[in-house]
């Protein structure tokens, strides 16, 4: 298996405050990897550092290519779609405009039209609401829209920041099922940050645990799920 994302000795800073203290991890092509950790451990910062949205040092390679000091939009254009915390929905625009924005860097008109239909097949509720302002959607619908918008890029890697946040348990189940399907069928590699460790470990094939800006554990999702410490700290039984 080839490595798609390789992160070495990543350190990130908010002003004077250091949030990541030398993070090293990698993600294989086709994998669905999860980053677990408590509040403030540095999960969101890790995703933001990959997209150069926070000041950082260290080496990040995507598909063998160093990202260096590329701007956020140029990193996205390489095929890294980022669904940020809070979803980043364009609330004043319609659902369909949000999907079109996801594909704004693409030039294949026919492909974009076909992909919008594909998204409506994944998320039928979006089709019902296509002309509605995105801000009027429920939290779960907005999360689906955010995932669909990210997929419109035809990404090779999707970064998801707490997709379960604020959603009802049943909605989360549905969403995760679709994420698994996207990972298998569309061959999109996924790096998902989650507080809902149980669900994330059921879905993922690989997992890392972060504590105060460092990786403290890594392994297959099964190994991590059966680890005594992880069970006590993150799964709660």
């Amino acid at each position, binding site marked *: 298996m080839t490595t798609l994302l390789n992160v070495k000795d990543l350190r990130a800073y908010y002003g004077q405050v250091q949030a990541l203290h030398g993070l090293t991890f990698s993600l294989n092509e086709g994998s669905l990897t999860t980053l677990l950790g408590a509040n403030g451990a540095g999960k969101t910062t890790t995703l933001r550092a990959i997209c150069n*949205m926070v000041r950082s040092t260290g080496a990040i390679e995507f598909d063998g290519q160093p990202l260096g000091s590329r701007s956020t939009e140029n990193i996205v254009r390489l095929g890294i779609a980022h669904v940020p915390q809070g979803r980043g929905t364009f609330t004043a625009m319609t659902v369909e*405009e949000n999907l*079109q*924005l996801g594909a704004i860097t693409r030039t294949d008109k026919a492909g974009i039209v076909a992909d919008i239909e594909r998204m409506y097949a994944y998320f039928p509720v979006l089709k019902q609401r296509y002309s509605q302002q995105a801000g009027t959607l429920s939290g779960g619908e907005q999360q689906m829209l955010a995932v669909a918008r990210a997929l419109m890029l035809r990404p090779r890697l999707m970064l998801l920041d707490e997709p379960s946040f604020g959603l009802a348990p049943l909605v989360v189940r549905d969403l995760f099922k679709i994420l698994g399907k996207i990972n298998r069928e569309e061959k999109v590699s996924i790096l998902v940050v989650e507080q809902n460790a149980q669900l994330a470990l059921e879905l993922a094939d690989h997992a890392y645990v972060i504590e105060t800006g460092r990786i403290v554990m890594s392994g297959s999702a099964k190994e991590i799920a059966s680890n005594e410490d992880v069970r006590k700290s993150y799964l709660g039984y």
Partner: protein
Amino acid sequence: MELFINQILAGISTGAIYACMALAVVMIYQAIDHLNFAQGEMAMFSTFISWQLMQWGMPYWAAFFITIALSFAGGIAIERVMFKPLAKAPILTNVAGFIALYSIINSSAGLIWDFTIKQYPTPFGSAPFLGSQLISTHQAGMIGVTILLLIGLYAFFRYTRVGLAMRAAASLPESARLVGINTSWMIALGWGMAAAIGSIAGMMIAPVVFLEPNMMLGVLIYGFAAAVLGGLTSPFGAVIGGFLVGIFENLAGTYIPGIGNELKLPIALALIISVLVVKPAGLFGRPIVKRV
């Protein structure tokens, strides 16, 4: 009654110009959250360029469109050179930048073309429009050009991908970058378009106020009043605000005793203050709410 209708129509025609200026101000405000105090001077300088082209023998409409293109490029250049480096600077630094730009453009125009008042041609003529005494052909032309411009802008923002990307960059810059939009260039494009819209306003109003370096001062204040009245966050509101301010200005000048021509400008300022006190978001703007 005829006087009343006449004043309303005259108000709509100057209001069209205020609407353009308000729209230019709102476009830059949406992109960088600052009011461009130099918007009027940029428009004035563009108007001088078109005048110079005509002096060199170019026909009106050729000069008109070349000036729009040059203004577009000039707006982008100003953003790249002056305001891109100030993007993260505090608000007062930006205000100082706008005032500097104002006086640089104003003085340069005076230096190049001097401060004497010049006649500026109208492509529409100044005969009564369709034989009616209510409105002149130039006034009708001003309204017509503005309406065409507004329709064009609406179609651009509503139906083109660049327009969609510009709207996205203005509403949520971070999300826009995350779908791969180069937000920095979208801001530059906004400046270019604002400069082009301003140049149209300048060339349309010049036959009325005559060409000289301070010609846009009053117009810009009415433009600000229009933008504030309609709401700084709403391009649609800015346009409606422009027409309302134009009508209001004319009616007040005609019917309120003692106002006349001299006191028309303070009316615009009074309007700005009243709107800010009573309804700070304007008629169509949405209040900016932040969750804390």
